């Protein structure tokens, strides 16, 4: 049994010298005990005597880089693992390329840990200004790394803060820079570092202001800034309050925006209709003549949603003007509803058809078209904010509710929408036009008018 003693936890040069000697003497990895500093030696160990066989050998450069990094890991086994890897690399050139090898993988993971720790130290060290004797200013930070990275990381701070005088204190090792050279000293305690800096209030002001309360993603934050670092970062003290207030601030913004819409709603609607005229969200815009947007007062309390424009609407550019529209007009008049006071629109805003000779035959819009077009109806609803919305037919119901429902299962019952409005589902007027049986058609028409009356009554009741 041999004992190899290293000067410190990150003593790469010591490890390299010992490993070279041991490897030349062909000492097997399990015959070496690695220790740091003056701890009592292993009972059965002999010092790794310098009676090594003369000679030298070389290893690939990537091995040296990997070993230098992985050696800073906190795992006490790292010296032995690296020595094992060294013996194997000597025997098998190119071993390091075999990332699927369990030992290579384990050491790569250690190196990755160390690199991440180094990166986080570069990110999360917070210097505090300290006035020292003679009017000089020194910047001092307290940091608690997971691994032995202070020495390997010090150059970064020297490059960046070359003209400042600074110190980074950690439990294991401290480093000082006087503008010309790095000096390493034993570990320190948190109380050795200053406990504040007047500028931290300014930094916290920035941190609070740059946070957007309308997009809270705590998981994304803690993934990259784990809580273990928080205690040494002044800004993190604000996080609980920022999160607690976020929901309130966001809903406040939305409410204020709703309340303020006022006189602008008409202009907003016109701009929206203008944009819709150029819509290409689904392929229906190709064969159709034009977008048929909704119409009616933007402060209407009752909204009707149909299926899609038909042949005549497509040409006129207005909703509900064809045969079904005329029937609709008759029915709402019968229900005592003033057509000029309601907002009418369609779930799908382009005419979908199949050509049969010279005729254009209505084709039912599919789920993709309804979903693509829902963006517009959502915008219309945001502006109009009707108290009651009547969906005419299953397509309109699907658009409004976002799921497939049947008329028979939903008719005659109020459904509360996410925006607080009330939805009622009934048939589409074109269904009434298609009924061949005259008696049944009259019955169904009467039932349709009843549905419209109920909707109108709800408008009055919720006023």
């Amino acid at each position, binding site marked *: 049994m041999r004992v190899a003693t290293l000067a410190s936890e990150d003593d790469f040069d010591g490890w390299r010298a010992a490993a070279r000697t041991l490897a030349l003497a062909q000492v097997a990895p399990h015959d070496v005990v690695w220790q740091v500093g003056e701890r009592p030696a292993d009972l059965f160990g002999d010092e790794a005597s310098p009676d090594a066989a003369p000679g030298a050998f070389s290893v690939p450069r990537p091995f040296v880089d990997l070993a230098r990094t992985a050696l800073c890991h906190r795992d006490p086994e790292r010296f032995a693992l690296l020595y094992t890897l060294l013996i194997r690399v000597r025997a098998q050139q190119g071993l390091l*390329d075999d990332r699927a090898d369990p030992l290579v993988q384990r050491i790569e993971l250690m190196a990755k840990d160390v690199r991440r720790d180094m990166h986080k130290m570069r990110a999360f060290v917070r210097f505090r200004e300290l006035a020292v004797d003679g009017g000089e200013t020194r*910047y001092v930070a307290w940091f608690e790394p997971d691994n032995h990275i202070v020495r390997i990381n010090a150059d970064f701070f020297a490059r960046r803060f070359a003209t400042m005088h600074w110190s980074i204190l950690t439990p294991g090792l401290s480093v000082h820079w006087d503008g010309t050279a790095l000096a390493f000293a034993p570990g320190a305690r948190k109380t050795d570092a200053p406990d504040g800096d007047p500028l931290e209030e300014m930094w916290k002001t920035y941190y609070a202001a*740059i946070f957007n309360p*309308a997009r809270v993603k705590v998981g994304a934050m803690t993934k990259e800034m784990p809580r273990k670092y928080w205690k040494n970062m002044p800004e993190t003290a604000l996080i609980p309050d920022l999160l607690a207030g976020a929901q309130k601030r*966001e809903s406040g*913004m939305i409410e*204020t925006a709703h309340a303020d819409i006022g006189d602008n709603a008409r202009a907003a609607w016109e701009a929206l209709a203008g944009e819709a005229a150029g819509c290409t969200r689904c392929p229906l815009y190709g064969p159709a003549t034009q977008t048929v947007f909704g119409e009616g007062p933007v402060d209407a309390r009752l909204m009707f949603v149909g299926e899609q424009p038909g042949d005549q609407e497509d040409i006129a550019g207005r909703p509900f003007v064809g045969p079904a529209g005329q029937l609709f007009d008759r029915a709402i008049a019968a229900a005592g509803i003033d057509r000029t006071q309601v907002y009418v629109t369609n779930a799908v805003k382009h005419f979908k058809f199949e050509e049969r000779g010279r005729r254009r035959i209505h084709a039912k819009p*599919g789920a993709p078209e309804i979903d693509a077009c829902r963006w517009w109806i959502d915008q219309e609803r945001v502006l109009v904010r009707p108290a009651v919305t009547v969906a005419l037919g299953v397509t309109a119901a699907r658009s409004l509710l976002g799921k497939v429902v049947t008329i028979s299962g939903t008719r005659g019952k109020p459904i509360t929408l996410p925006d607080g409005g009330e939805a009622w589902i009934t048939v589409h007027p074109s269904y009434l036009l298609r009924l061949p049986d005259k008696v049944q058609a009259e019955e169904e028409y009467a039932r349709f008018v009843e549905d419209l009356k109920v909707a109108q009554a709800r408008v009055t009741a919720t006023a």
Partner: protein
Amino acid sequence: MAQLDTRGKLAILADAAKYDASCASSGTSKRSSAGKEKGIGSTEGMGICHAYAPDGRCISLLKILLTNSCIFDCHYCINRKSSNVRRARFSAEEVVNLTLSFYRRNYIEGLFLSSGIINTPNYTMEQLVEVARSLREDHQFRGYIHLKTIPDADPELVRQAGLHADRVSINVELPTVGGLKRLAPEKSADRIDGAMREMKTSIEDGHDARKKYRAAPKFAPAGQSTQMIVGADSANDGDIVTKASTLYDRFGLRRVYYSAFSPIPDASAILPLKRPPLMREHRLYQSDWLMRFYGFQPKEVVAATDADGMLPLDIDPKLAWALKFRETFPVDVNLAPRELLLRVPGLGVKAVNSIIVSRRWRALRLDDVGRLTVSIAKVRPFISATDWRPVTLTDRADLKTHIVPKKEQLELFAA
């Protein structure tokens, strides 16, 4: 109203700047203060995020506006002319001092400076350039500077911006021309395009000059970027992906940022209040990655969208593509070329590199692949190895339910 001190201004002008998603500080030329008499700062390839806000965004730069006063009235913008937000304006010196004192304490990697447009575009641009000039020349600041440039500013001012800044950017704002017309009526898509094209030329000229003369000054070494707001106009994901790819090609952009439209205080009526799910923004970034690092063509990403042109929210676009084009799989990890390995859901660029070097040394078994990747469960249905072949999996109609992560795991970026 009481006079604002620097801290009061900072609160207003950082709040006004937070809707810009970009905070990158990477990809610029290497600089160091080692051996220098004066000045401060360094840049070294990889950017550093010095903190994260609870919105999950990285804070690497001091991101502020010079002023939030603006002569424009863009409806999505908190700083638009008609907004009732309190106005403030930094002096160039205040910004310089803030940047330096934050930098000395290791809070930031540099400055990202933008501004509302005051007086004229040229006047505004002059103010921005002055801050960058002072940092670089008066204080020998070697940290990162990102300047937003104003589309209509004089080319000479834009050139000066590029000489001082690492990165310059101009936002296209909205993916569709119709959206821009509705929400930013005073901005012009043509002028924005023109400004990005000129910037591309200047950056390329800068590169050429450096090839000929080592001493030629660097011009925006971290290139130019842009930002699109997602969910404020009618563009679907297919439109956005196509637009982004056009921007990368035409203007040589380093990055396109996607910013899910966010409600703002004192919103304009024309703004849609319904905001898109944040996951949508995430899916767009993933598809951006597929185009930039995984060899996906824009039309292939578009092919991964659902029938309504939107990327699925419950699975990532690479998995969505794989489920649609199952005939591509299984991919043999021991034989397949790099391009094909990159198509496997769950295999990242690093894992693919590891597979390619490792397979020279051994015939890969499923266990071996497991050591090279994060989650073998996600990868397994799409690969074959010496001891593994997913005979039935890719033929199963319910494959998706087997791979799609459970709901609680899925919300990677949720609270």
